[in-house]
Structure formats: structure tokens, C-alpha cells
């Protein structure tokens, strides 16, 4: 059984066509036999009438009658004589005991007695045809033949065949049209459903499947799916609400502790106390940083940030970031080079700056002494392609899948500052911009490739 709507439709149209053809064949078979039987019946009636005539009037009168009826060879005009075209043509032949033809010239050969199915004939208009014939011996030793033209039969066959073929054509045509229409209807609704699902997968929990009010099966399943989505949305929102409530509830007491520390710091009696308090405040700030970063990643993943997206020049943003970081690279004797093509995308400048800044900071912190950074922005069709690479120590192949995960730090000692959320944030930001980020194979160091859909340039 086909499993696609297209396959099912083709199968059903095919079956309809075959059924039509079979019905046509049955119709031809039945009508063919019916007409054949009717011709036989008329031949028998005609034969009976002629034999009666022979008994009553004798052989000579019969010969005259046959000549009369067999209008083609004589001047006689029988009621059937000139009716050949509509299939009622009757043909006659009369022979004596020695087999000599006495009357009737349209049948070239006298058939043997009994029924003949395919007897060649010559019509009065000269055309050749095929007839079925009944031949009977006469009491005086002669033979009489009555034949009926099969032309009517073959024309009836032809007409039924044409009707069947026309019917087949109509069925195939309507089948194809309705299949296409049905397919379109189904596809249109499925595209709406899959589009919504895609939106949800991308994190837009506000998406719902459109309902057209037709009360169709699609409307009903869409309503149920929408209710499910509404529930998921509500759960996600309450989850986020909980996070932000926790953030708020934690920040308030932490803030108060920090503020008390600050106040104590002003009155610190000695250096040791001052240092302890300063360290505690720094730890508190690191804790708050981690918390803010976690909430930040969640917030960007929530995709509400997309509401603020505006067209902006990605090259300008990259230019600003490179300019901001160049002195930091210079101070370490490292280089940062950029080749930027102007590309416009829809996005949030703050987030994009944060993403690129995070990546540059990773290079500064982890790529190793003297490793240089390269940023390249190209426009390829409807995409902005950004590569950010370094020629530093790189990372092990096994770690490549892990580095985008939250709180993953490749440095097992966790001795370098940071909380392992940088690349999670980068990925969330790129994802919010409907883009992708991948690690490209490179001989040395690490190379990230970012693709973001571009807006058509104004030029």
C-alpha cells in the first residue's frame, strides 16, 4: 500500500481507470452478442418467410422475389435493399440443385448450408464487407442464402469502445485534477503545521497553527495541537518566571550582604580585614556574574529578544569590536586582522557584539601565547558568512562537540577565570539570529564558521 497521499491518489485513479475499461469491455461483449443474436434472429425469420414463399409459389417465384429483394443486382427495390449504410442490409443468394446461381449477386461464393459467421460480401455501393449468413437447402435440391451485414455490429463495437475510452479519459482527468487539488489542500495545511512546529523547535513558543474555521479534520487536530502548545508555552513561561523570581529573590539578599561588606570596608580596622572583605566582595560579584550569565543565556534562548531585531550592518558591528579589542591584542604582542564585506542582517547589535567579544576573549584567554586572531565576513548569496579563527593551540577533536554546552570548561583545573558559559551564550545568540555556528577543520588553532541569513542589500 502506498503511504503517501500522492501514491494513494495515483492508485485510486488507476483503479477507477481500470474499472472503467473493464465496464467498457463488458458492455462491448454484451452488446456485440445481443446485436449478433438479433441479426441471427432476423435471418431466421427472413429464411422462414422465404421457405414459406417457396412452398406456396414455387421456385420461379422465389427467384423473382430474391432478385427483387436483393436490390443491388436487379431493378427491384426491397424494403431492405438500400438500407445498407445503417446496417439493416440483407443479402440473398439462390442456387439450383447443380449449384448454379439463380439470383443474388452480392455474395461472391455460395456458402455451405447452415450458419456462416464471416462471409465476404460486396455491398450495392461496391464496398466489401463481412456478413453472417444462413444457408438452407430447398426441397427441389437448390439452396437459398440469407446474409446480414456485420457492419452494424462493428460500428456498435466501435461506438462503445469510443464511449469507454472517453469515459476513461474523463475519469483520469477528474482523478488527476482532484488528486492535485486534494494534495494541495493537505500540503497547505501540513505546511502550516510543520512551519509552526519549526518555529516552536527554534524556541518561539508563541507560535500557533492557523485554524480556518472549516471544522475540517485539520482544524480539529490543529485545535488540539494548539492546546498542547499553549500548555507547553505556559510551562516554559512559568519556568522562566521561576528563574527570574529566584534571580530577584537571590539578588536582593546578596546585594544586601555586598552592601554591608562595602560599609564594613570603609571602617576596616586593618589591612588583613580589608583584604578579606575585598576578596569576599569579589567572590560575591563572581557569583552574581555567573547567575547573571545563566539567566542571560536562558533569556536569549527564550527568543523574546527577536522582537527588538532591526536591520543593521554586521560589518560595522565587527569593526567596532575589532577596534575595541585591538589594543588588548597589541599589548600582548598579538595581532587581530579583519577583512569585512558589508552585509546587512536583522539582529540586535548588543547581542552580536557580545557574541563576537566572547569569542575574541576566548582567543585571548585560551589560544595560547602569541596566537593571532582573524575575522572574515563575506556575503554569500542570502547569507552572511563570518569566520573567526586563531592560529593557537586549538582543542582536541573530542572536545569539539562539548564546547557549546553550558558550564563546560576544557581546562580541567578550572584555574583560568570564567564560568564556561561564553560559547553557550554565543551559540544562543547566533541561534536567536536564525544562524548556525560550526567548528571548521583547520590545520592550526580553532576556526569557527557562523552563518546568518542576510537581508537584501539596498544597493
Amino acid at each position, binding site marked *: 500500500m502506498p503511504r503517501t497521499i500522492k501514491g494513494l491518489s495515483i492508485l485510486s485513479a488507476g483503479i477507477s481507470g481500470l474499472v472503467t475499461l473493464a465496464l467498457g469491455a463488458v458492455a462491448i461483449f454484451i452488446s456485440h452478442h445481443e446485436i449478433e443474436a438479433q441479426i441471427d434472429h432476423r435471418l431466421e425469420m427472413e429464411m422462414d418467410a422465404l421457405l414459406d414463399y417457396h412452398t406456396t409459389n414455387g421456385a420461379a417465384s422465389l427467384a423473382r422475389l430474391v432478385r427483387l429483394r436483393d436490390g443491388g443486382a436487379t431493378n427491384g427495390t426491397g424494403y431492405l435493399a438500400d438500407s445498407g449504410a445503417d446496417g439493416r442490409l440483407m443479402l440473398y443468394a439462390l442456387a439450383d440443385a447443380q449449384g448454379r446461381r439463380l439470383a443474388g449477386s452480392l455474395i461472391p461464393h455460395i456458402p455451405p448450408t447452415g450458419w456462416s459467421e464471416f462471409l465476404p460480401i460486396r455491398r450495392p455501393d461496391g464496398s466489401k464487407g463481412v456478413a453472417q449468413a444462413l444457408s438452407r437447402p430447398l426441397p427441389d435440391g437448390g439452396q437459398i442464402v440469407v446474409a446480414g451485414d456485420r457492419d452494424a455490429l462493428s460500428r456498435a463495437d466501435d461506438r462503445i469502445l469510443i464511449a469507454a475510452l472517453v469515459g476513461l479519459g474523463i475519469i483520469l482527468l477528474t482523478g488527476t485534477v482532484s488528486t492535485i487539488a486534494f494534495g494541495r489542500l493537505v500540503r497547505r495545511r501540513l505546511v502550516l503545521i510543520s512551519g509552526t512546529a519549526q518555529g516552536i523547535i527554534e524556541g518561539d513558543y508563541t507560535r500557533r497553527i492557523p485554524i480556518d474555521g472549516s471544522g475540517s479534520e485539520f482544524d480539529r487536530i490543529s485545535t488540539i495541537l494548539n492546546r498542547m502548545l499553549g500548555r507547553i508555552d505556559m510551562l516554559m513561561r512559568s519556568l522562566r518566571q521561576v528563574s*527570574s523570581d529566584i*534571580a*530577584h529573590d537571590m*539578588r*536582593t539578599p*546578596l*546585594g*544586601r550582604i*555586598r*552592601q554591608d561588606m*562595602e*560599609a564594613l570596608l570603609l571602617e576596616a580596622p586593618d589591612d588583613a580585614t580589608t583584604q578579606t572583605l*575585598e576578596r569576599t566582595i569579589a567572590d*560575591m560579584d563572581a557569583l*552574581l*556574574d555567573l547567575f*547573571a550569565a545563566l*539567566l*542571560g543565556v536562558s*533569556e*536569549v534562548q527564550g527568543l*523574546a*529578544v527577536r522582537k*527588538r531585531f532591526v536591520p543593521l550592518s554586521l560589518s560595522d558591528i565587527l569593526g*567596532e569590536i575589532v*577596534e*575595541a*579589542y585591538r*589594543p*588588548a591584542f*597589541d*599589548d600582548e604582542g598579538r595581532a587581530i586582522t579583519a577583512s569585512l564585506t558589508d552585509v546587512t542582517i536583522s539582529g540586535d*547589535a*548588543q*547581542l552580536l*557584539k*557580545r557574541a563576537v*567579544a566572547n569569542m*575574541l*576573549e576566548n582567543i*585571548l*584567554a585560551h589560544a595560547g601565547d602569541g596566537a593571532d586572531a582573524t575575522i572574515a565576513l563575506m556575503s554569500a548569496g542570502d547569507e552572511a558568512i563570518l569566520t573567526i579563527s586563531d592560529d593557537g593551540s586549538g582543542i582536541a577533536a573530542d572536545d569539539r562537540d562539548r564546547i557549546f554546552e553550558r558550564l563546560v570548561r576544557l581546562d580541567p583545573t578550572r584555574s583560568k*577565570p*570564567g564560568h564556561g558559559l561564553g560559547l553557550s551564550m554565543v551559540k544562543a545568540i547566533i541561534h536567536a539570529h536564525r544562524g548556525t555556528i560550526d567548528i571548521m577543520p583547520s590545520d592550526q588553532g580553532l576556526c569557527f564558521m557562523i552563518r546568518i541569513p542576510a537581508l537584501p542589500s539596498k544597493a
Partner: protein
Amino acid sequence: MRILLLEDDQDMRDYLARGLKELGHHVVVEGEGKAALARTLAEAFDILVLDRMVPGLDGLTVLKLARNAGCQSPAIILSAMSGIEDRVAGLEGGADDYLIKPFAFAELAARLGALARRPPPGDRAEAQLMLCVGGIELDLIRRTVKRSGRIIDLQPREFSLLEYLLRNPDRLVTRTMLLDRVWNFGFDPKTNIVETHMSRLRTKLNEGGAENLIRTIRGSGYMIVSSAS
């Protein structure tokens, strides 16, 4: 300056009020939104300091209603609500600055100082075209900088950095304020962007043995002094 402080947390309120009074400001405290709104509409304040989550009306609504009623005093929102959306809502609601709790008191004081320095909205057309502090002249039209007649060639970001310092002479300017205003970074980079640019700016300004006017305030930020002491 007359400052309205809206904050519902007793400890925080006392701490901020005491600190601001020590800096010589006159502080009016309110712990509830409706009272704060009534106060704002009845009296003139130089600066509004509003916590967001307070009883009655929340701080952002107080600000929006005050703005609708014609209040033009600079306002800074203090809030533990740190999301991007929260900050955007605050700034779009009429706030001039948004400070996330917890914060260092020095940060709040510095931001209040910067806000107080801003020309009132009606005077924008007459805003200064030339900033002069301690022999440094910054021409906002020609985008040139001179020190004691010597032309100093600055990168665009160094120019913006100097401009911001000169607009706030003798006041603490914090690292996050500079990141906000000069780089438009709404996040805190781990690399000290500000420090590296500041050291280049200093080197260019002090070329030829000129006195260093940009002081580093340890743990807080920077200050440009109008006269070296």
C-alpha cells in the same frame, strides 16, 4: 541636589540615603509607589532614584506617569531585574540610566553625578561645542583635540572616551559607565577594554612630559581633574 529615592527595602533605603546625604545631597525617601508619584508631581527633584519592585505602583509605572505629567527630572532605575528586556523596558519607560542590583555605592554616586551634569532637554541646541578642562581642548565640531596648543591625534573611540571624561570633570566615571556610553556595550567584557584604551589615551595626552590629568580611582574607575594638585 534634591534626590527622590524610592526603595521599599528598609536596610537598602537607609544605606543609600545615608550615603547620598554624606555626599551633600538632600534626599527624600519613599517606600511605596503611590506616595513617591504624589511627591514627584508635587515637588521639584533634580534626580529620581527608583527601585522597580516596590509596593503600590512599581517604580517603572511611577516614572511613566511622572513623565506623562511633564516631569523632566533625570531618573535612574535600580533593579534586580537584570534581563535585556527589563533594561530596555526601563529605558523606554523614560529612565536615563538603569543600574542592576547589587551595585557598589560608588557606581550609583558616579552615575548620579553624570546624570546631574547633563544639560536639560530644552537646552540641547545650546550644548557646548567645545570642552575645555585643564588645558585640554576638545572641539566637537572639528573633532580635534589640543593640549596647550599641541594637536593630539586620537582614534575615534579615544576621542569619545576623552569627550565623556571632559563632560564629567572632577567626577568619578566608572568602567561600566564608559562601556555603556563610549562602546555601547550592554555587557561586561572580561578583557579590560577600558583600561587598554585609557592607557593609550593617557600616553597621547601626556606626550612631551605633560602632567597626567586622568586619575585611576582604584576599584572604581577614572576621573579627569581640572587642575592638578
